[in-house]
C-alpha cells in the first residue's frame, strides 16, 4: 500500500517537471547546437513559451531534429569558411610580394594605405598595432623573391612558411634595423604580458603567438 502511495506521489512530482520545466531546459540545450550568435537560438527560446504545454515535448523534439541538421550544418559551414580564410591568408603570406606588403597582411591592415616606403606601425592605447613612423630603408621595399641580406641571417621570404611564421625575429630585426626610432618606441612601450618574454608576442597576430617565441640569439 505504501509503495503504491509513494509511486503516486513520485509520479505527481515528476509529471509537472516533465511537462513544465523539462521542455524549456531541453530547448535551451538544443539551441546550443546552433553556432553562437545564430538568431535561431533566441528565436526558439522565445517561441517555446507560447507553445501550449501539452505540445511542448513534441515541439522540442522537432527542434532537436531541425537543429541537428541546420545547426550542425551551419557550424560546419562556418568551420569550412574559417579554414578557407586561414588557407587564403597563408597563401597570401607565401606569395612573392614585397616585404612591406607582407607586413601589411600580417597586421590585417589591408584597408589602409599600403605600407611600402611609408611603413606605419605603432602601439595604441589598447596595445594593438596602429599606423605611425616611416621606413624608407631599402629593406622595407626589398622584393621578397630571393634571399635578403639585410636581416641577421639570410632569409628567403618565398619559402613555404614565409618570414612571418617561421622567423618572426627576423621581421622584427628588420624593422628595428631599418627604423631605429620605431624600434625604440616599441621596446619602450611594449612590456611583457601573460608570461610573454617581450614585445614579440604582441607584435604578431594572436593566433600565431603560441608558435612564436622571441629568439635568444638577440
Amino acid at each position, binding site marked *: 500500500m505504501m509503495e503504491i502511495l509513494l509511486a503516486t506521489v513520485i509520479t505527481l512530482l515528476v509529471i509537472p517537471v516533465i511537462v513544465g520545466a523539462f521542455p524549456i531546459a531541453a530547448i535551451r540545450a538544443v539551441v546550443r547546437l546552433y553556432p553562437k550568435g545564430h*538568431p*535561431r537560438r*533566441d*528565436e526558439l*527560446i*522565445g*517561441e517555446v*513559451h*507560447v*507553445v501550449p504545454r501539452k505540445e511542448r515535448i513534441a*515541439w522540442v523534439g*522537432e*527542434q532537436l*531534429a*531541425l537543429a541537428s541538421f*541546420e545547426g550542425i550544418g551551419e557550424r560546419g559551414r562556418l568551420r569550412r569558411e574559417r579554414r578557407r580564410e586561414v588557407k587564403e591568408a597563408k597563401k597570401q603570406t607565401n606569395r612573392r610580394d614585397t616585404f612591406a606588403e607582407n607586413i601589411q597582411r600580417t597586421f590585417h591592415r589591408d584597408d589602409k594605405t599600403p605600407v611600402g616606403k611609408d611603413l606605419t606601425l605603432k602601439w595604441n592605447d589598447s596595445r594593438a598595432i596602429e599606423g605611425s613612423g616611416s621606413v624608407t630603408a631599402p629593406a622595407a621595399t626589398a622584393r621578397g623573391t630571393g634571399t635578403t641580406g639585410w636581416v641577421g641571417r639570410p632569409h628567403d621570404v618565398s619559402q613555404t612558411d614565409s618570414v612571418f611564421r617561421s622567423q618572426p625575429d627576423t621581421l622584427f630585426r628588420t624593422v628595428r634595423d631599418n627604423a631605429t626610432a620605431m624600434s625604440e618606441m616599441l621596446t619602450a612601450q611594449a612590456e611583457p604580458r601573460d608570461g610573454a618574454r617581450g614585445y614579440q608576442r604582441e607584435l604578431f597576430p594572436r593566433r600565431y603567438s603560441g608558435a612564436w617565441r622571441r629568439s635568444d640569439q638577440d
Partner: protein
Amino acid sequence: MQVALALLQDPEGQHYGYELSKAAGVKSGVMYPLLRRMLDEGYLIDGWEDEKEISGRPVRRYYRLTDKGRTQLGGIIRSAQRDVRFRGLNLGTA
C-alpha cells in the same frame, strides 16, 4: 503554398514562427528553414519584439512581408489558383 497563404492573411502584420506553422498546418521543422529561405530571398524582414512591451517571457522573433514578398507570394498563389493540383486547397482570392 500554405505558408504563403498564412502570411498573406495579414500582409502588413508581424508573424511568428510557431503561429505561422499552426496557421499553415506545417511542422516547425519545415517552417523555420522556409522562413530563412524567404528572408534570404528578400520576401521577409525579421525583427525582435520590444522588451518593454512584454513581460514574463523572452522576446520573440517576428517576420514581416516585404513589398517584394507580397508581390511574389501573391503571384504564386494566383498561379496556384489556376493549377489543378491545388484545387483542393482554399486559396481565397489573393
